[in-house]
């Protein structure tokens, strides 16, 4: 289906797979470099490293769809009818992540209020956050150490 000859297509696909492999290695190096695994004590801001890895992932996605799946050689109508609907996801991602962030702020606000109101030793917001286990065990716990055990046991 492509406009390339068999030989050209063969060397092209070899080139693409090499690029994909190199990008993957760079991504992993970035993930480890940002957290100080490669150079001791060196940390990079997560926002910058994250953005770099997201961009690299989209380059990989482009190469897979356009070269491996031959989207590059399809007629424009087909390309648009398949790719344009995915733009709806842009709204979904923004709306849901914004909402998730709001939940986080509510949780933080709620735990602050409880810290002020509750006497030491009672169940705190952190326990609720860390799930059912903490709640269940807080009733059977020892609380031997003058009740100053906010993580609940």
């Amino acid at each position, binding site marked *: *289906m492509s406009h390339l000859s068999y030989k050209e297509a063969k060397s092209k696909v070899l080139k693409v797979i090499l690029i994909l492999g190199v990008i993957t290695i760079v*991504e992993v190096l970035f993930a480890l470099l940002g957290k100080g695994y490669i150079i001791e004590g060196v940390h990079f801001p997560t926002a910058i490293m*994250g953005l770099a890895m997201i961009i690299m*992932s989209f380059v990989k996605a482009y190469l897979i769809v356009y070269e491996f*799946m031959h989207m590059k050689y399809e007629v424009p109508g087909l390309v648009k009818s398949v790719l344009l609907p995915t733009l709806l996801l842009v709204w979904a991602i923004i709306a849901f992540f914004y909402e*998730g962030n709001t939940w986080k702020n509510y949780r933080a606000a709620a735990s602050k209020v409880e810290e002020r109101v509750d006497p030491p030793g009672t169940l705190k917001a952190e326990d609720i*956050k860390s*799930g059912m286990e903490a709640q269940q065990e807080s009733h059977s716990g020892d609380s031997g150490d003058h009740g100053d055990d906010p993580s*609940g046991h």
Partner: protein
Amino acid sequence: MSSETVMHPSVEENRSGAWSGGKSPFKASYGKLMMWYFLLSDAFTFAGFLIAYGTLRFSNPTWPVPDFVFSTFPGGLHNKPLYFVTLMTFVLLFSSFTMVRAVQEGQRENKKGVIVWMLLTIFGGLAFLGCQAWEWNTLIAKEHMSVTTNPFGTHTEHGRYLEGDGHGIEAGDTFDPGTPYLIHKHHGEYQRLKYEVTEGPQAGSVKEMSFGPVAFGALFFFITGFHGFHVFSGVVFLLIIMLNVASGIYAKRRNGYEMVEKIGLYWHFVDLVWVFVFLVFYLL
């Protein structure tokens, strides 16, 4: 299967006009076009899962640190952050490459070539599934993560351990905020270590390790499981189509092994999804 056949020129002449099937505006067969639309719908399904993951991750103050959670390697190796998942990614990339080669051999009607490259693709798919089985087994049987319990937590304050866990943590060890930990299981019970807070307004108080965000286990198992199931289905279909290639029925159609091209689209899509699963679960 018979919808694959190329239209004979005589049929094409009879069906003239845009609404009587004579023209193919997308210059693609019905089967190939519908494979694209199926993949589009599948992309939305995966996007739904991944957006749910992102929303829950955003809503939690801490999240399990991937280079701590995924740091084991077959052979009892530890502290190998992301090595194994990188290997899995390469296995899947390699099988995508062999799939393209199978499609290319099909376009020049080389039956033997198609079979060899498809066989390699199936091998790659099985290797990936094997890797995933090992990863799941480590998380479930050794680290005791389940869909309802997540023993991977993150410290939010400075502190000093008051007891050791026999897995590298000794009594007296100190830690900073952001340090990840795993709550090990001993005799059927999670061993939540006691520690003393050393800085901040709560300095001096004694606390216990708390569990990590509950949603992590369910999200991990369902999303990687759904992807793994796609790989498994892909392997099954590749096997069926490879047997059909061997039987010679596609050669008779003289359409450049279009069925191989269609399963190829599906296979690359599985690789495409992995790019994003890899990004959100392991890299970020």
